[in-house]
């Protein structure tokens, strides 16, 4: 889901930066307000986890590959704005050091994978889990559905951003200037990959790590519950 440079017009990239940067600024402000709980080192661990998850490419129908991201998981364990920052930072390192995702396209990649994914995933999770206790069946089911919806929402937006390119930007004779595939191909391709395979990879990672944390590091959940109380007080 990492859009490389050249697939989106510079105008599209500009719009996506204009949306993503203020959200990142807001997320930073929210997270820094909570640093007294020492969540930042944990955020580093989970950011690195997301980085690693994205390295596990899985084959999907159509002969391409896809991967999980872990954004909803981070939102559940550490908080939604924490997840925005953790995934954004992982995407930044991927773009700059590993050429995975473009520099111009960074704003779009952040929007899809680091903003929409965790916020939608967490929203759905919250709707379903209500206040189910950590480690409960209801919480795990809510996490599964949330993470599935979150990654598919991101895939849909990715498909739309790519698919509108040939419509908006082409030469006089209609040759596409950027992504050559129209909406009718980009959206189904992205959705097929994520509805069938990558979405379930995301579910397995989310539920698996939640269960792992519940068993081996439950003190993290206590930290989050403490944060919630503080925020609502």
């Amino acid at each position, binding site marked *: *889901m*990492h*859009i*490389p*440079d*050249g*697939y989106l017009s*510079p105008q599209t990239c500009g719009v996506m930066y204009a949306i993503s940067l203020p959200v990142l600024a807001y997320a930073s402000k929210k997270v820094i307000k909570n*640093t*007294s709980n*020492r969540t*930042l*080192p*944990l955020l*580093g*661990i989970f*950011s*690195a*986890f997301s*980085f*690693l*998850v994205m*390295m*596990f*490419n899985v*084959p999907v129908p*159509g*002969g*391409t*590959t*896809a*991967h999980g991201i872990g954004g909803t998981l981070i939102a559940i364990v550490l908080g939604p704005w924490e997840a925005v920052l953790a995934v954004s*930072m992982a995407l930044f*390192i*991927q*773009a*700059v*050091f*590993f*050429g*995975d995702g*473009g*520099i111009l396209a960074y704003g779009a990649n952040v929007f899809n994978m680091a903003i929409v994914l965790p916020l939608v995933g967490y929203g759905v999770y919250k709707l379903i889990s209500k206040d189910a206790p950590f480690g409960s069946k209801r919480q795990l089911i809510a996490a599964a559905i949330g993470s599935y919806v979150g990654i598919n929402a991101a895939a849909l937006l*990715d498909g739309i951003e*790519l698919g509108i390119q040939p419509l908006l*930007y082409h*030469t006089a004779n209609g*040759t596409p*200037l*950027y*992504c*050559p595939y129209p909406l009718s191909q*980009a959206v189904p*391709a*992205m959705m097929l*990959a994520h509805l069938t395979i990558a979405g379930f990879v995301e579910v397995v990672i989310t539920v698996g790590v939640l269960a*792992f944390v519940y068993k*081996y590091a439950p*003190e*993290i959940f206590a930290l989050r519950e403490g944060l919630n109380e503080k925020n609502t007080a």
Partner: protein
Amino acid sequence: MKKTLLKLFIFLVAIAILTPLGLLAEGDAWGEWSADTLQKLVGFVPEGIKKFSSLWNAPFSDYSIKGLNDTAGYILSAFLGIILLVGVFYLLDLVFFKKKAQ
């Protein structure tokens, strides 16, 4: 908290060692093809992709490291990612937590 971080760090290291499994899947992700692959797929390379695709040359492009085979390069890239990300947030913690603690 130190113990928690250590436990999770060990978990990360274990996952990093497994990352070469991600190399088994053949082909590229949809919409992430190189200019050469795109030429084969659609018969031409769009102007914008010619112009911007090599805007930035990442030092470890495609998680590969010069002089190492794919598997070793991938694992080393995974560890590099861990070091960079854990490092960045550790530094942020030093800056902001210290400031708040004063």
